[in-house]
Each structure stands twice: as structure tokens, then as C-alpha cells.
């Protein structure tokens, strides 16, 4: 097992090939990105999906398969994934910016309108983002979902935000 994930701790472009949605699908509206590539015994995402767009099946170590045509990008799966490995990207808006929904488990929660550092999978600052909304319903059990606006070019790159030192707008 010599994958980048196993050596460095984050997925390389090659490993992501099967996870990322087609550009046409991203342009249509929000869609889930499931970055789960190891056969660990886990399936809450399958049950979380209200439109049955995620299939794990048996054994529960099978990798989740997303039916991107069915997925409505609701984001319910994000906080249900114990591995925090699901994101929702939306490249359908006019203009240069799109949104990413990502899981967030630290205090304080970012505020809507706040400017934040946008981090890639390796934690490198790759740009800035603007927080649009923070969802923290009881059912999410303390896994907030932050909807952050970033450049469309970064929709497949940004996977975390940092409020450290507060990014300049």
C-alpha cells in the first residue's frame, strides 16, 4: 500500500480521480464528494442519504458509491460521516465563485460573512474564502457544516478553512 494517503496523509490527484464529480455535474448544482478510499467497516452515509444516492452495501467495508445523477447536494451526509470525508461542491452559480460545504468541529464556529483562509488537503493556504452559512442542527451532533464561497477553480482543492489570524477580505 504505497498510496499518497498512506504515506503523507492526504489524497493525491490520482487517488482523487474516482472521487471527484465530473465538471458538467458540478456546473449543474451542488453534489457530494466522498473522499473515502479505504475499505474500513463503515456505512452511515448510505443511510443518511434521503434520496438513496449513496450505496455501500455488503460487506460494510465496501467503498461508498455515489450516484451523482441522483445526488441533490443536500449535505445531510457530511455530518453523518464519522471520518469527516464528505464534502459538497457547487459550481452552478454565475460568476467566478462557487461554494463548498465542509465539516467543522472546533470552537468558535466561523460567522457568516467572515473571511477565512482556504486550505487544501495538505493544510496549505491556497486562497481565501467567505463564509456564507454555518449549519449546526442538533441532528448533526456537534459536527457543524460550513458553507464557504471560493473561486470555482478551487472547488476541488479546498477542503478546510482556518480562521487563524483572520484572512484579509
Amino acid at each position, binding site marked *: *500500500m*504505497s*498510496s499518497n*494517503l*498512506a*504515506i*503523507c*496523509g*492526504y*489524497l493525491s490527484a490520482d487517488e482523487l480521480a474516482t472521487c471527484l464529480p465530473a465538471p458538467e455535474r458540478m456546473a449543474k448544482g451542488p453534489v457530494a464528494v466522498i*473522499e*473515502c*478510499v*479505504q*475499505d*474500513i*467497516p*463503515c*456505512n*452511515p452515509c448510505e*443511510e443518511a442519504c434521503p434520496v438513496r444516492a449513496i450505496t455501500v452495501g455488503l*460487506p*460494510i*467495508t465496501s467503498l461508498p458509491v455515489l450516484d451523482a445523477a441522483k445526488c441533490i447536494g443536500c449535505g445531510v451526509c457530511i455530518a*453523518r460521516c*464519522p*471520518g*469527516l*470525508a464528505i464534502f459538497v461542491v457547487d459550481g452552478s452559480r454565475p460568476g467566478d465563485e462557487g461554494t463548498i460545504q465542509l465539516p467543522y*468541529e*472546533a470552537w468558535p464556529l466561523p460567522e457568516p460573512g467572515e473571511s477565512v483562509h482556504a*486550505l*487544501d*488537503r*495538505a*493544510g*496549505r493556504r491556497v486562497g481565501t474564502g467567505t463564509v456564507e452559512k454555518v449549519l449546526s442542527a442538533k441532528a448533526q*451532533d*456537534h*459536527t457543524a457544516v460550513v458553507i464557504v464561497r471560493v473561486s470555482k477553480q478551487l472547488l476541488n482543492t479546498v*477542503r*478546510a478553512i*482556518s480562521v487563524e489570524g483572520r484572512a484579509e477580505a
Partner: protein
Amino acid sequence: MTQSDTDIIVIGAGPAGLSAAAEAARLGAAVLVLDENDRPGGQLFKQIHKFFGSKDHRAGVRGYAIGDSLLAETARLGARIELGAVVYAIYPDRRVAVITADQRRLLLNPKKIILATGASENALAFPGCTLPGVMSAGAVQTMVNLHRVLPADKTLMVGSGNVGLIVSYQIRQAGGKVAALVEAAPVIGGYGVHAAKISRLGVPILTGHTVKCVHGTDRVEGATLVALDDKFRAVPGSERDIEIGCVAIAVGLTPLAELALMCGCKFTYIPKLGGHLPVHDDNMETTAAGIYVAGDITGVEEASSAMEEGRLAGIAAAEALGRVAPSEAAVLKQAVWARLNALRTGRFGQARRDAKERITAEGRGAHVV
């Protein structure tokens, strides 16, 4: 604590012990759980992350919430828990010697004993390892998640199993920094999703690296990291210094099996599962008749499988006491085995399953003691 009415004594009130107690009590056995700690739950109450698995394994529920529900379940079913109670011996006649929280010495005489004593964290020796600030990852987790104290602004994590990865994430959640996570092996030991969680928060994971030494006068002030070659030899000239105030050691666990050894149980040695451990059969019974084991003492896994093993031991012990018909017990045990086997699949689980099958193969058959 009285002995007259106790059918089963469970030693250890962690996930395995509480599950065993709940199952045995549900089937009508009088159960007493002894734990040397001042609170029950083992490590569950510092597990603030959501567990993996399926709905049957309570996937998506945080560890402390599972702890709460296990405590409620054991209380509802009438299993008693005695805290601050240290079991210091089990004699050949199966009497259990206990020192209670109020310093009384008791000899209890249960019909069955379930050992769910867990595991202890391994240490690592390097120059500076005795400085204050060098501690186990579990100690960091206790400080951060139970006592809400961050050991230092910056921590060096040693070891990339799930414990090292998860505790690194929890240090970040608590507002601390993890300067680096070093792993001597060429690949990360734990789940990729746990590694990805800390990577994207900027924690560098350095595989093929270890801590060469830790420096400081009265406490940890820094560490020297060094790269390792494929034979785990330090690569000359690869040293680099980092500033840190804490070194967290997450280099595996060893089953706490002393009581099983005292009982004369047959042992085996399986490095993959933490070293020397008592063999057991499909009922979790050791080669010492009436002594059952569950959880990390049977080989280090994780809480989800520990709970299933506990349920198996609880059912089997109650069955041996005649509290449940063999046919009914068989159905109950089969359901547990199905859940357990589901957890022991995939690239991480299969190796554990193979190792566990070696244990049960050794443990089946006649009880020798």
C-alpha cells in the same frame, strides 16, 4: 459489596466489561462489575469522536454518548458497579481478592469471572523521555477531553495508529498545535480518513521519521526529529529541531493480562494484537474453566469490537450458569458474531480477524485448568 448473591464478577468497567455485565444481567444473572478507577466507562468518556461501523455498531455516535447509554443499560438491568475497587489477585479456587475504595479487603466467590481489564499504552525510550511533558497520547486525551487542560501549545505526536491520529485531531480541536506527527514505519498505521482530517488542518505527518531526542532543562522545550531508512536506521544529516512543549507517545498498547496469568490461562504471543494474551474459545472462555475474557485483554482492537466481545462473554457466562437455554444463547451469540465479523473485514480488519481466529483455534477444546 457482598458476595453471597453474585453470580458473575466482571473486572473492568470499560466498553467490554459494561457490555458483558449488561448482557449477563439481561439474562438474569446477578452481576457485579469491579473497576479500580473512580469513574466507569474505561476510555469511552474521552472518545469525543464519532465511531465507525454500521447502525448495529452505533456508528456515527460519539464515544462518550455510547458510554452514557452503556451505563444506563447496565443500571436498568441491575448490574452493580463498584468503583475504586482494585482486584489484586484471583486464587486457584477462583476467589477474587479486592481492595475497595474504603480500603476494605474482601475475598469474593463468584461462579464466573469475566476479565475485561483492557490494555496499557506502550512507552518509548529516547534521550529526554523522562522530562515532564513527555506523556502517553492517552494521557493527553484525558487532560484535554476530560479535564479540559491543554498540556502545551505545541505537541509532537509519535505514532500514526488511530490513537495518534485521533488525539492529534483532538489537540487541534482544543486549540493546540501539533508541530508534527512522526511515524517510524514507511506508511501511516491508522485510517486514511483520520490522517486526512489532521493533514488538511496543517499537521505534517512524517512517515519514516522518529524522535531522536527531546531537550529541555526542567521540562520539554524541543525535540530533534530524524529520518529513518528502510531498515529503521537513522539517516545521518537528516536531523531537524522543532520547538514543542509536549511529546505524546502513541506507539501501541499491550493487553493487561496479569489476572489471566494468575488464573493459569494458556497464553499465546501475537505481536499484531499487542503481545502476550490469553487464548479463548468461541464463547470467550479461557482455558481456565469459568474465566472469560473480552476487549483489549484478548488482543488490542477498538471499542466497537470490545463491546461485541463483552456481549459474547456475558451471554456465554449466563448460559453456563443455566440462565438461558443453549438454543436461545446460540441465536444471541450468532447475532453478536455477525456484528463482530463485519467489523473485522477490509484491509485493517482482516488481519485482526485472522489473528483472532488463531486465538480461538488455540482456545477451543478441553479446558486444561
